[in-house]
């Protein structure tokens, strides 16, 4: 009976290996497609491009901001907050 089960088309070792191979194939294909897609959307290519990307991201983060002048009271408040935070950390 054991040998019989081995030759059953649905439960045979060959069909199991076939399923495994198919699953591996699907995963590999998905990985390859993902690589293609991410490569297409990336604005720059290569390691040198990644350094540029970092710098560009900083530039974008700094654009469109407002620097507001502090009043004397605000400056004092800012300094007090800094010092309080520092002494709290030290203690």
């Amino acid at each position, binding site marked *: 009976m054991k*040998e*019989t089960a081995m*030759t059953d088309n649905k439960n045979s070792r060959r069909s199991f290996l076939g399923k495994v191979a198919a699953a591996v194939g699907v995963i590999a294909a998905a990985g390859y497609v993902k690589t293609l897609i991410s490569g297409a959307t990336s604005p720059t290519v290569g*390691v*040198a491009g*990644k*350094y540029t990307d*970092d*710098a560009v*991201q*900083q*530039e974008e*983060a*700094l*654009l*469109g*901001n*407002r*620097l*507001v*002048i*502090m*009043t*004397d009271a*605000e*400056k004092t408040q*800012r*300094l007090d*907050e*800094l*010092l309080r*935070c*520092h002494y709290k*950390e*030290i203690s």
Partner: protein
Amino acid sequence: MSEENNTNPEESADLDNSRRDFLRYVCTSSAAALVVASESSAAAVVEEANSADAEVTVAEFFQGHFVLMSDEEKKQAIARLEKRYSAQYGKKTTVSDVAAPDGVLFGYALDMSKCIGCRRCVHACAEENNQSRGESAIQWIQVMKIPKGNISFSAEELEKGYPEKSRFGDYGVQVGGNAYHPAGLTTEGAQSYYQDEAVPDKDFFYMPVQCQQCEKPPCVKACPVRATFRDHAGVVLIDYNWCIGCRMCQLACPYHARRFNWGEPNLPAEEMNPKTHYFGNRPRMKGVMEKCTFCVQRTREGRNPACLEACPVGARKFGNLLDPESDVRKVLATKRVFRFKEEFGTYPKFFYYIG
């Protein structure tokens, strides 16, 4: 099927025996192959370990966080690094671990009305701090060129505002003074990668941006392994050997002041600064973060940061925020100082002002 059922038991036994023998041969040969492979790889490891570089690499891999090391472990770690850097760059390299001074809270101030956008601070910083050059260049300072029309405030009305009061209480909403005008400047239309033949451009002013050394640094909170931390002098530092390169700190920083080494840094031996600090300007490796440290290798020894010394117009001030007589405290007391990204609540210790 019927044939298989009718198989002679003796033949079946032979089949089992041959399969068993086959498996035995496979196991034996695999074991032999493994032994040979392990012997050869062990020999290779021993051969590699004979070189100083491999010894250092293995030892560095297993070393802990520098702050938590014993004095003896720190000495060994520094000796390893000095040996490796000296061999790698062909010059005697020192790695300091001088601690932050007590009773100090470092702060920085930059006069935007003086800055001429010459970028000497950027280049001085790169040279002092052994930053990567060429295609993989890393710069810790980014200079923004901002149109002068972006600044707008009335100095006379600056102190005339007051919090609105109502029968429900004081809500702190300012009325009067500059409340109805944009009091400050915007970075709208600014550019960082200007290629002017001559500076300054009379229609622009310049704003160098670097790590703001926040008193409540979000990068420190984001680091999952505590590789980045704030020392008791208020400077945010990184243990490069403990950093896992996850880049969470880069995402957390509102100023995007951190840089990641995507590849092996390109640092020519002749341009390498051999006087380094463990948390500062020692050469970094691929896959770690880096950023401005207020030149920890200098400031912990009582010197000024390289960017300040390089500034030809004296736009930069550095000092101890705990000392009322320091340059930074005097700037805070007497100059028009800006709030920059205050909404993040990070308490930066880098102040922009106009003189």
